[in-house]
């Protein structure tokens, strides 16, 4: 009997250990573990991400911060896969360690991030958010990339033969709706007969499901599809139709399938914010404007193989509209209501 008890308590220890190691590994220390030791530099930036850095949205922030490390000589470290329960702790750790600028995505942890920021008024917090900035130190940005999405829609409207184009998106939230709507509006401007079909997968990342949703659209006649989520391009490639990528240049996934797509570039935002922090003049602002085409915060991905395949008339039409957007003479309407 005694032996059993020892065995039992030893076992409980093992279980407790197992759970904590699992949480530790899941809890976002991977980034810092394999980070090289930080070089001495001027300002220190930390990023806290809810997902692994492979998540396309997060990846664009991460890439821009890596560029800042290289070109602006800042120190940069990050934590990924930080779940809501750990988010405040990780943010606080960086703030306590003296990082001057803390960035991240806060859609799932909006309230937590704002609460932590209030406790460190001397630290600059700049987070991806669908709502406004908060004094004194909580700045926001967002993927305002509806302009290149509109241009992609124009291409889709011209390239469809069935006059059915599709969008496979995560869910009907403002950030995603304004892209879906801009895509469809662009297509409708150049092709009155075009019909837009929208499917949602109900989660931000489930490529197998997004692929099935795309296949369902393709089988109903869609022949140009906007891959708002991962998984869609693979379906388009398999079924031999055309695709528009999203967020980054994804032509390499399927060069014959992906024509182009909106790219979000966080570099102008990061550069501007780092400049403010360095100069000691940072204030809470909405940095969303730095994601517009005019500031270089978004653009249409290079055509690669399609440079020779896209009809000259379509290229000229897109180039003209692009110039009008850059000149400020054409404004892409922002519609954040659920697409119909």
């Amino acid at each position: 009997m005694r032996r059993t008890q020892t065995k039992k308590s030893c076992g409980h220890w093992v279980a407790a250990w197992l759970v904590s190691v699992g949480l530790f590994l899941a809890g976002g220390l991977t980034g810092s573990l394999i980070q090289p030791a930080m070089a001495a530099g001027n300002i220190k930036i930390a990023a806290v991400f809810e997902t692994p850095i492979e998540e396309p949205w997060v990846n664009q922030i991460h890439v821009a911060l890596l560029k800042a490390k290289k070109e602006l000589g800042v120190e940069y470290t990050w934590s990924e896969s930080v779940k809501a329960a750990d988010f405040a702790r990780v943010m606080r750790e960086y703030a306590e360690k003296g990082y001057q600028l803390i960035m991240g995505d806060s859609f799932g942890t909006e309230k937590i991030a704002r609460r932590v920021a209030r406790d460190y008024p001397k630290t600059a917090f700049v987070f991806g958010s669908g709502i406004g900035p908060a004094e004194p130190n909580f700045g926001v940005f967002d993927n305002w990339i509806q302009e290149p999405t509109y241009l992609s829609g124009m291409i889709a409207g011209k390239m469809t033969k069935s006059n059915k184009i599709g969008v496979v998106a995560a869910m009907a939230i403002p950030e995603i709706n304004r892209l879906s709507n801009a895509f469809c509006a662009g297509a409708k401007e150049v092709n009155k007969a075009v019909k837009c079909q929208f499917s949602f997968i109900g989660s931000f990342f489930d490529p197998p499901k997004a692929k099935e949703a795309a296949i369902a659209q393709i089988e109903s006649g869609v022949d140009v599809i906007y891959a708002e989520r991962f998984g869609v391009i693979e379906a388009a490639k398999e079924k031999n139709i055309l695709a528009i990528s999203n967020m980054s240049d994804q032509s390499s996934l399927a060069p014959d399938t992906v024509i182009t797509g909106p790219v979000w570039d966080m570099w102008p935002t990061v550069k501007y914010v780092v400049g403010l922090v360095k100069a000691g003049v940072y204030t809470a602002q909405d940095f969303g404007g730095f994601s517009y085409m005019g500031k270089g915060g978004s653009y249409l991905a290079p055509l690669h193989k399609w440079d020779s395949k896209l009809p000259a008339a379509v290229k000229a039409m897109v180039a003209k509209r692009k110039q009008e957007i850059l000149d400020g003479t054409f404004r892409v309407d922002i519609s954040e209501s659920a697409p119909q």
Partner: protein
Amino acid sequence: MEILSQILQVGFFAALLRIATPLIFGTIGELYAERAGVLNLGIEGIMMFSAMAGFSGAYFTHSLWFGVLVAVLAGMLGGLLMAVLCVSLGLSQHVSGIGTTLLFSGLSFFLYRLIFGQPSTIPVIEPFRTVNIPWLAKIPIIGPVLFDQYALVYLAFLIVPVTSWILYHTPWGLNLRTVGENPQAANSAGVSVAATRYQALLIAGMFMGLGGAFLSMAQYNAFTFGVISGRGWISIALVVFGQWSPYKSMAGALLFAFIDALQLRLQASNMIHIPYQVFLMMPFVLTILAMALVSRNARAPAALLRPFRKEER
């Protein structure tokens, strides 16, 4: 009617089988564990870990089947951990299972980062192609649906009758069921409860591994963090739905996949204007409804969740 004729086409039934496949692997795996008296809540993490391991194996060797083998071994490793915790140490199956899921999902991303670093684009493999069975694939409608699928889809539907035969027609199957119902009796009959449960958990891990491999190597061509997205948890529910029987569990997986494939096509058709959340809910709601109606008299294996210690009564 117009909608139905648009939807109920070859593509729909092919999608149904693809969506059902990882669920069947997960469900049959879980079934072995539970029939032996162990609830394996590690399934979600084990499937994720196998998806990662299988993908990595295929990525470096350029051999998809080697990747599948790695995924199977990774799944068995997960099964072994569960066995050590719940059988040898006799711990709470709930805690061990959740712990295994947390450990293995954390480990998946950690190892992925160690192996692949931080690539600017996600590494991909050339995934499995569908295997077209000559002659049979030419049969109208049934042909392209049933005989032009991924090899792992055929395998999934093969393991269901095999599992049923093993459980109900072999001495080992009888031992397994006895261990799950009445381990004391099995023990007095000279059957090693611990060994049987170890074997069951290893087989369970193997099938969970196949489920993970299907998702990262056939259904998709990369390992990403959402690749399992709760399919392990769904499998656990489907075992209950199927009243711990292989065929009924498969029916559950098919029902779920049927409604999922249907809702994706209803969304795409743009013909019914209701909020998309209703479509997304459909597979879950209808499966729960069916479960409530069909599985009311379902009875779990009597020794489920109970660790077995020889010296205790």
